[in-house]
């Protein structure tokens, strides 16, 4: 950025371009500013203020209270901290279950409906995508019926000889339930006596409640269709050449998927995981229409808690503070995930496997009779690595465009 070529004077033929550029973007910039940036800044201010919900938060009788709202949530020792801890615990389990499950299912469905030989692909794609376009409120209500104590799901389970739980009324953690099968009813005192955010470690490790688990199933059911679509787009973007190369090298379908296709889908995977992570941490509508935090606060989530503290309890500062803590959590998780999925240079040691030995160093050539060479089929190591090497180099070259 040190040496920039001096631009010609703006009065020329293209002089007005910058101005019209700003003009064209102005409506959107103003709309975004007014309805996004300004409210966010105001909420930030509310989280540091003692606003009580009457009149404007910017009026003169609202005072700055520093980190009071945040400390009530993080170190207050009262009900506010306990509720926040409970909400984080519930949502963390929700994320831990939903994100991998929905991503795996979406990828599985995408691979299925992406196959050329599948008849009626359009039908299946529509069918799998359908839950995503239905309103979340409608689906939640449907879920409440299905998972009623005498509902369809329990009826189905009863045919299998299983007595289904009273889904949306059951506050027991599923890991606690599992341990209960072995007679472990209460945790060791090391876990029950020490707490984090007002919730004992034993409870943190209790797993999602049965009620929350029903929400996990709901989320996987509704969102995997959306992400399936992203994966289909990703799959269709892949050139056939690399796969063909892998085929020629003798990789079977399983190997082609794991070592050729999946690495190439990394940008899509990143998108899906990021969107999934954000969506999961912000889960609100299902809770609002479904259980409102019941039973036993085990479906309370930070997003719903934020709403509840502000609108029902008139604790506007705390409600806003929860929203910003949630924001920080989401950013941290996204960064962490980005770091985990980041492209790393292939190490020298691994790279050596991909290198084609120089011809002149080996006049007779390796004992290699081409792809049909019997050794290579069993070996599954050398040739396949060439294909993955090509795939890897392609991804690297693609990513140099700064796709992520």
């Amino acid at each position: 950025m040190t040496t920039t070529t001096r631009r010609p004077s703006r009065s020329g033929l293209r002089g007005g371009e910058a101005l019209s550029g700003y003009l064209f973007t102005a409506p959107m910039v103003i709309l975004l500013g007014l309805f996004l940036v300004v409210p966010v800044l105001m909420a930030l201010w509310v989280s540091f203020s003692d606003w009580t919900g009457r009149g404007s938060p910017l009026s003169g009788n609202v005072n700055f209270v520093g980190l009071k709202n945040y400390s009530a949530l993080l170190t207050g020792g009262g009900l506010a901290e306990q509720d926040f801890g409970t909400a984080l615990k519930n949502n963390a389990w929700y994320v831990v279950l939903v994100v991998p499950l929905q991503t795996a299912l979406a990828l599985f469905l995408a691979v299925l409906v992406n196959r050329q030989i599948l008849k009626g692909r359009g039908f299946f794609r529509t069918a799998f995508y359908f839950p995503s376009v239905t309103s979340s409120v409608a689906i939640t209500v449907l879920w409440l019926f299905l998972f009623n104590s005498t509902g369809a799901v329990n009826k189905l389970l009863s045919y299998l000889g299983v007595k289904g739980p009273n889904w949306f009324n059951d506050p027991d953690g599923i890991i606690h339930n599992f341990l209960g099968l072995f007679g472990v009813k209460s945790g060791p005192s090391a876990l029950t006596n020490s707490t984090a955010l007002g919730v004992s470690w034993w409870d943190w490790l209790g797993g999602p409640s049965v009620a929350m688990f029903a929400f996990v199933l709901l989320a996987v059911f509704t969102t995997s269709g959306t992400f399936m679509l992203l994966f289909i787009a990703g799959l269709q973007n892949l050139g056939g050449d690399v796969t063909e190369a892998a085929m020629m090298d003798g990789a079977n379908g399983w190997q082609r998927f794991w070592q050729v296709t999946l690495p190439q889908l990394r940008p899509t995977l990143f998108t899906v995981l990021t969107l999934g992570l954000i969506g999961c941490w912000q889960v609100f509508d299902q809770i609002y229409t479904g259980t409102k935090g019941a039973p036993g606060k085990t479906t309370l989530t930070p997003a719903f808690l934020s709403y509840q503290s502000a609108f029902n309890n008139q604790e506007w500062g705390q409600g806003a503070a929860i929203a910003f803590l949630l924001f920080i959590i989401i950013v941290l998780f996204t960064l962490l995930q980005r770091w985990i999925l980041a492209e790393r240079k292939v190490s020298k040691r691994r790279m050596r496997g991909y290198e084609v030995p120089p011809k002149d160093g080996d006049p007779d050539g390796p004992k290699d009779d081409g792809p049909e060479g019997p050794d290579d089929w069993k070996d599954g190591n050398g040739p396949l690595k060439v294909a993955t090497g090509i795939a890897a180099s392609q991804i690297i070259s693609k990513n140099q465009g700064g796709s992520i």
Partner: protein
Amino acid sequence: MQRRTNRWLAAGILATAGVLALSACSSGFGAGSSDSSGGKLTSSKKALTVLIGSSGDAETKAVNSAVADWSKSSGTDAKVSVASDLNQQLAQGFSAGKPADVFYLSTDALAGYASNGSLLAYGDNLKNKADFYPSLVKSFTYDNKFYCAPKDFSTLALEINTDMWKAAGLTDADIPTTWDQLETVAKKLTTDGHVGLGIGGEYARLGAFMTEAGGNLMNSDSTKATANSSENIAGLDYAKKLMADGSLKYAKDLGAGWGGEAFGKGLAAMTIEGNWITGAMTSDYPTVNYTIAPLPAGPAGKGTLQFTNCWGIAADSPNQAAAVKLVEKLTSSSDQLAFSTAFGPMPSIKSAADTWKKDNPKLVPFLEAADYAKGVPAAKGAADVVTDLNSKLESLATGDPKTILDATQKNLEALVK
């Protein structure tokens, strides 16, 4: 780098300008709202808006026609709107400085809105002030000011399935009036098919036992936490004992959503619910024969819980005088009796009691309970504490009442500090 900074600068300027613009608007709102708690009521020609959280068409229609009648006679326009989420819409109105003039307000929301000055404390201006039940007035008194007129109320009583009662060989003389008798009949009524007493596992039902033992979570002004008193512990101990006997079960454990459902489906021979259960019984379980008895007395005599709402008036309303007039009309004997016929609540004024009892002979125990009923805690944030208590009461059968109530005591003390 240069261009980058410029961009951020521009965004910053835009944001600041936006905030300033909004604050300019807001100072406009602020100027109009003056604290009118002590002074004269505002009065203008503006139409009134009435915001209600309706239980259904019957209620909406009844309120609509009552308000329309008042508009006709007073000459002031008034419009009723039904909130889909009352708390949220109220909060939005207050923060925008343009709230509804008259609205439903629950006991647990009162303290929050009263403390930030959103509400008009008009109770003392009411002509029919002396007619309200004193315990209801107490529920809507905050900081020694009677804020709003009780709209109507409900109390808990004991509902008994008469067919199961007879099948167990019990007669009218056996209707329990003490804890010991309740224990006996609950045992007798427990069979393979149904449990003796099935109730919702929450404070709003189990709290009745606490009041029968002479306690409650807070004192009647909601200024002092009394959650872990020996009376409350005795109340929960009694419920726990019935559970251990197998003669008391939570509706949830019977596979029902609430006590009324367990009772209607015949999963429980008795339940403890409020007068709203009659509507559900008529519409969902019309074949079940039942009778209503007062809750049996505990060690400290009779006790029950009461639930109520009031007609709130906004401090920011430009037409408070007319709003008070409207509320006087809506809480009058004739209007309350009309509401009662339409959707079943009990009138909040003593002068309507006799007519109501004559019209609803079966439901008399509900109204008579007004003499000894106690309110639920109304301190700011108490609803949250009660939710927390409810989550612990779910495991009362295996839990320790004192530990449960100690935690609630700590949480309530934090509210009134």
